[in-house]
């Protein structure tokens, strides 16, 4: 495992182009585009203000920089550096800006969710979509980029509009059976739209592309409901994380629950491996490092933490949420399927330092990673069943079915990993600190271990 030198960035704005060739970072009001291989600066653009959002177009040719405070969006071309585009939303304000899947339109959501403005870079045309709903996830594009689903609120009722992204033709518009729609998400094959209600009611609705209600799922009533929803990449499973600290998996044929994964404070499952991060062990014990603990860091970078396998039963640290406060820190908030749909990683908010990895084939718990501090972010390798996570300290943690590694990021000045992103090839990781970033290159032989 190798690490690049550290670069500056701000607002954690750093993205690799979809084709994996370029790395765009924002430093205050500047946009820097580098070659991923050499890390040499290819382009440098200067925006009008501090950039609050940045995104690549799907064809990796354009970069969008949004300055929400000023209601401005600037678009830069990689091929034509002197080409420029500036979109001013004016006094109506701007809260969100995104590319359409074709990379030729920009969708801006105005303040108060008054409307969504669609700007065409081809025709300079402007279209408005009224009544967008302000919610967890109100807009979703299908994976093939053909359709866009938009949650709307009219007359105190929830609606979903399905647009054809090609020419923003309204394909379907239907009312949903929700009290207060919280989010929607297309299945990866683009044929089923999952819609879920706000946390006050456990309700997940599945709509076909043509607006037919396929199924309704509700696990329980009265208590707080859905917290997160994720499709498996194969579209076979829909995982629903909820406030009752459980993940329920629905199948794609009957839309009934196949199984549910519980997140108990005591792990009795003998088949699951519990990795516990142990910090600052005396050097004497480094001899009996388990096989799963890679000792690279120990020899090169003086690792201070390692994983130990705990024999079950294991008691996990639990923080009891304050019942008087809104949005209690309990329940499964983060769900992620591995790229091969084989594994599911989850995080239960009242056990913030624990990541759970489930085997979807066996429908059982595979591993539990107990960190010393709260997990900030985890992401699956886009190519392999390999999970990277960070906890806001100077270490990077990796899990694969073969084992678990803790790696110290070898930089001066205490580079604290706040967030991470995989390169689309799965060969490198972008580690984001508070104001810095660093690339981590995976050894190809390591995954064979």
């Amino acid at each position, binding site marked *: 495992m190798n690490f690049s030198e550290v670069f500056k960035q701000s607002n954690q704005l750093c993205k690799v182009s979809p084709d994996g060739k370029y790395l765009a970072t924002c430093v205050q009001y500047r946009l820097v585009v580098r070659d991923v291989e050499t890390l040499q600066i290819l382009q440098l653009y200067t925006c009008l203000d501090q950039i609050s959002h940045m995104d690549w177009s*799907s064809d990796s040719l354009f970069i969008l920089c949004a300055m929400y405070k000023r209601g401005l969006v600037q678009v830069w071309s990689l091929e034509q550096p002197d080409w*420029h*585009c500036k*979109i001013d*939303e*004016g*006094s109506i304000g701007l809260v969100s800006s995104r590319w359409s899947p074709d990379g030729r339109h920009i969708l801006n959501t105005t303040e108060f969710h008054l409307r969504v403005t669609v700007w065409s*870079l081809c025709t300079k045309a402007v279209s408005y979509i009224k009544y967008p709903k302000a919610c967890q996830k109100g807009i979703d594009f299908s994976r093939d980029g053909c359709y866009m689903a938009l949650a709307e609120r009219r*007359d105190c009722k929830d609606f979903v509009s399905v647009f054809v992204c090609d020419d923003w033709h309204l394909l379907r518009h239907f009312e949903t059976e929700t009290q207060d729609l919280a989010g929607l998400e297309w299945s990866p094959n683009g044929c089923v739209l999952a819609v879920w209600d706000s946390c006050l009611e456990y309700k997940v609705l599945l709509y076909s592309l*043509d607006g037919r209600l396929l199924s309704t799922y509700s696990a329980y009533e009265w208590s707080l409901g859905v917290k997160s929803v994720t499709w498996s990449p194969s579209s076979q499973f829909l995982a629903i994380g909820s406030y009752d600290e459980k993940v329920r998996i629905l199948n794609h044929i009957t839309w009934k629950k196949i199984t549910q994964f519980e997140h108990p404070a005591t792990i009795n499952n003998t088949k699951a491996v519990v990795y516990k991060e142990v910090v600052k062990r005396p050097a004497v014990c480094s001899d009996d490092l388990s096989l799963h603990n890679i000792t690279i860091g120990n020899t090169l970078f003086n690792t201070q933490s390692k994983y130990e396998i705990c024999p079950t039963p294991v008691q996990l640290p639990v923080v009891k949420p304050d019942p008087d406060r809104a949005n209690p820190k309990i329940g499964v908030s983060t769900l992620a399927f591995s790229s091969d749909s084989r594994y599911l990683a989850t995080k239960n908010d009242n056990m913030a330092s624990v990541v759970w990895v489930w085997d979807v084939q066996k429908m059982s718990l595979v591993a539990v990673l107990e960190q010393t501090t709260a997990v900030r972010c985890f992401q699956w390798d886009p190519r392999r069943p390999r999970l990277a996570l960070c906890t806001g300290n100077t270490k990077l943690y990796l899990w694969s079915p073969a084992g678990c590694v803790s790696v110290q990021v070898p930089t001066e000045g205490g580079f604290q990993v706040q967030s991470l992103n995989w390169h689309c090839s799965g060969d490198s990781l972008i580690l984001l600190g508070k104001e810095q970033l660093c690339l981590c290159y995976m050894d190809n032989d390591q995954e064979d271990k």
Partner: protein
Amino acid sequence: MGEWWTTVPIGTSMGNYEISSISHVTMSPSRQNNLVSSLPLSRSSYNVISAFCTEDNMPQCISYINQELDSLGLCSTRIEASSPGGATINTVPALNAMYEIMTIHRRNMCNLEELEKDQLKTSSNLDHIQMNNSRLKDQLELSIREKSGLHETERQLQLKIKTLQSCLKTEKDEVQKLQSIIASRASQYSHDAKRKERETAKLKERLSQLLVDRKDKKLAMDVLNSLGRSDGKRSHWKTTKTTASHEGEMYKSLLNDYEVSQRSLMLENAELKKVLQQMKKEMIHILSPRPTRDDSLDQAESDGEEKVGDSSRETLDQSCEQAREQLTNSIRQQWRKLRNHMEKLDSQASKVQNQMESNKEVAQRETHEDEMERMRREVQQCKEFIHAQQQLLQQQLHTSFDDETAALLNDCYTLEEKERLKEEWRLFEEQKRNFERERKNFTDAAIRLGREKKAFEEDRASWLKNQFLNMTPFTDRRRCSSSDGQSALSIRSEPEMRMSSTKSPPAKSLNHAAFSTPKPTQSATVPSTTELYRTLRLIPDGSSSRHSKQGCWPESSTIEDGDFRVKSNRIRCGDLSIFSLGGDENSLT
């Protein structure tokens, strides 16, 4: 009288007595005038009697007594005056009467005693009962008190229940109230939320209207030059045609998805069907070898099923509903049958196990013996088989002996065998020589021993003869003779050593020697020879059986025959020769 007693409170027996006498008085008022006389009767009867009868009133007395006797029911005996008006009475009836009266009196006394006893008993009983009564009264009081206490607690509890019920009621009311409050609040809230939402919507509308009206100059896009579409096509006008095409495309994609899912389902189905088919086949396979046990009906059924299975297999690809049904049905039937079979087997197994457990040991021993017997028989059979093979081989060899190659091979083997035999012969010769020498030694030793014995006897006779005279001159001589005997023995042990070094004294030859030795030693005395026997016999016992066998080879008269046999067996291959040797061994043993 008894009733009267019960009402009377506790009193002494004396008192009772008095009362009884009083009652007597009341009962028989006719004797009232006798009250004075009857009472003190027990104390001083004489005075009273004297007072009762005087010479003057004799007849009256007699008549009175007679009356009394009558009243007592003693009519038979009447006291009569011996002479009318005389002072004397007829004694016999008087005595009889007296006797009667005495018996009555005694009886009465007895009765009285009994009654007194009874009374005592009853009084004690009464005491006991009274005590019991008092105790029970106490208990009763206690239980009554308890009861009242319980009543009290019950009342309290009931009160509590009542209060709790009222509490519950109030709580329920509260809950209902709260629920209604919550509901009303929720409705209020939702209403407010809706109102607010509407307001915001209105505001938004107004805001956007205002923004549109104001013609926000800032709201603009500044593009250097517009881009081409990502797919390189030019944009189209929105027409009904495009909407139709969008619809079509949507349905196409939906259809595609359904097709994909259907295909995958079909695949899965086919896979499952295959599994079912295989299962069925295997089940049929499992079930087919035991149709004899089942009734014919069952078999017919299975036959039918087989046909059904075939047909279903044929129609599998069509995935026709009927075929599927048939398949599942047949599988189900087969499965049922298999299950029944398994259950039967299970029960059988358990039965067998039970039996096993009951006569486990016996069975084990029996089976063991049986096994042994079987194995013995098998060994015998194998031996016979091998023998037969050998014979056959020999015959075959006899017939094909004139074959040149066979002869050549035969020659080779014979040469080898001859050499081996020669060696053995040499060995045998040596042994024979050794043996001869040994025998000679033995006979010599025996003769010598005999002689010495004889000398010793003579010596002893002479010594005994001279003992009477003088002992001193004979002691030296005797010592000399004993030392001689020892030396003779040591000489004899020498050839033994030699024999052991030459390593193969044949058993048969030894026996022969043993037979031959008595001849020369017949003259000698018996104990020495037996001694020698023993010492010599130790050696052949220690030698290995192989040596003895080797010794046997030349000894046997069928040297030629055995030689030939071995030769002939060696012709074909080494393995055969080994077998044949084994056979020889068996035949020898």
